């Protein structure tokens, strides 16, 4: 399965969703309309000639001075064809994307991490909580406007530690 062919197949199937196809040093990046993201991803996983069954990574990049602000990046791998593909989409501040956690299980915690670090919401996610930081934390550290040390990082954090929780 040729890389170029995967992007072409995608363009054929979703002419309105695929915004651009870039080729850089043998890596293919397909920009997708965020509204159609779920349909495209479902097809990428299940399509007979595609079979991108492994979600390697999912993350976001903050372009603070652009609009929409965030760029989501999905790295896919096809274990059948040994082929890699990068899918990109844009999401505005305060906006939400559709979850992919029911398509790839791996997306569950990765989406939680993106929510934790960037504040991007995923509609339909089964358990969208912070994953790396504690639950009382305010702010999203990987945003460009978040101060490096955080605000009041050296203050005691009783409220974080002693929130009532169900016993383990």
């Amino acid at each position: 399965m040729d890389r170029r062919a995967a992007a072409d197949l995608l363009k054929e199937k979703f002419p309105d969703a695929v915004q651009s196809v870039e080729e850089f040093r043998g890596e293919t990046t397909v920009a997708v309309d965020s509204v159609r993201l779920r349909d495209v991803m479902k097809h990428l996983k299940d399509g007979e000639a595609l079979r991108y069954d492994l979600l390697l990574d999912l993350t976001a990049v903050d372009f603070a001075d652009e609009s929409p602000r965030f760029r989501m990046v999905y790295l896919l791998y096809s274990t059948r064809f040994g082929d890699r593909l990068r899918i990109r989409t844009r999401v505005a501040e305060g906006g939400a994307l559709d979850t992919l956690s029911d398509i790839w299980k791996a997306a569950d915690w990765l989406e939680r991490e993106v929510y934790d670090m960037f504040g991007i919401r995923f509609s339909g996610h089964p358990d969208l909580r912070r994953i790396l930081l504690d639950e009382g934390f305010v702010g999203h550290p990987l945003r460009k406007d978040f101060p490096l040390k955080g605000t009041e990082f050296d203050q005691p954090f009783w409220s974080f530690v002693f929130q009532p929780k169900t016993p383990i």
Partner: protein
Amino acid sequence: MGITDLSQDALQQVINWARKNSVWPVTFGLACCALEMMVASSATYDIARFGAEVFRPSPRQADLMIVAGTVTKKMGAVLRRIHEQMPEPKWVIAYGSCACSGGIFQTYSVVQGVDQIIPVDVYVPGCPPRPEDLLNGLIALQEKIGRERWGLRKLVSLPRGIHG
């Protein structure tokens, strides 16, 4: 001689002697300092000389918590819970700069000193401290235990703790 014949002071001394020579730590390593702690229990440094070689996997069987490494705020609640699960009397050694004060991690995700969460008896700074430093801290703790008197040792009394 029955135990009732001993004066309270002498009894206290016997108890202190027993306690300080069998300080069992809970297995609790958080970062690179934990490796130094493991070395301290190896043949070269042999923490068993001080009766503290029995690292318990359960906090309910431990007397000492060696907080070895960086305490993240996410870990803070877990650390507090493990400390509360340890039976009295219990002691804490903050091992390494991170546990003492946050160390180099002046950042939003790291606790700036574990004494914000649990009471600390002995601070051992260093990045990481050598195993000898841990032994030194342990000896200091033993001396501290040896000086304890009835009623002197307060139960954990940080606000909102289980002891109150």
